[in-house]
């Protein structure tokens, strides 16, 4: 699948880093402003889809290959469960809000227990899940089994 014209490529080169940064900002400030894990993950996925549409599948597969996408998606989903279990190990109940960033003033980025960790893992999981699904949709049908 080839890419698009020169105009679309130039505009995408300008817009893609901005969209990436806004997605990371929405994810990290998930406990202060509206947003959070899932919303930031969707914005990152939008960045990937924009790059995939403008530059073609081949050039995106060199940067973020299929194996890397699947591995990091699995890591993101596993770390959510791991962060929930860590509270269980230390004697409290399941999903206890551990005090990783507890020693901060509410209102800073480094506050509110283990909520920022959850947001980061959720965003990574959702964004890469979208990317893996779009890689599957753009495969050509030369060799499917019946």
């Amino acid at each position, binding site marked *: 699948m080839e890419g698009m014209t020169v105009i679309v490529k130039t505009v995408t080169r300008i817009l893609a880093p901005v969209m990436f940064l806004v997605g990371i900002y929405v994810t990290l400030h998930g406990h202060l*402003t509206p947003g959070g894990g899932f919303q930031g993950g969707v914005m990152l996925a939008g960045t990937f889809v924009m790059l995939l549409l403008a530059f073609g599948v081949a050039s995106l597969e060199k940067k973020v290959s299929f194996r890397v996408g699947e591995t990091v998606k699995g890591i993101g989903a596993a770390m*959510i469960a791991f962060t929930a279990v860590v509270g269980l190990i230390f004697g409290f109940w399941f999903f206890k809000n551990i005090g990783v960033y507890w020693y901060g003033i509410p209102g800073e980025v480094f506050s509110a227990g283990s909520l920022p960790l959850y947001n980061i893992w959720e965003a990574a999981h959702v964004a890469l899940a979208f990317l893996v699904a779009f890689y599957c949709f753009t*495969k050509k049908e030369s060799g499917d089994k019946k």
Partner: protein
Amino acid sequence: MKKTRKMIEAFLVVGVALTFIFVVAYCLPPFGLHPYPLGQYYIKNTLNQVGAWNVVCAILWDYRGYDTLGETAVLFAAIVGVVMLFRGVTNGRNDGHS
């Protein structure tokens, strides 16, 4: 004849669903004056117990963490299903050797 019968059945289903929604909408408290005790409990105790300013995020990850864990698992399973459906399709390489 088949097409008109199909449309009549379709309108019947839509009518039943809309009746249910109307009955539900009339049995609720009036619009804009809904008292919500559980929501107010969450709003009042977020700053002391969680320390976050976003009440919705604190609900999703701290008070109702199990639901979010299940939702993550559902998303993961759906994407694994999509990958499994497109298993034997190569990417259009012309030669037979990978």
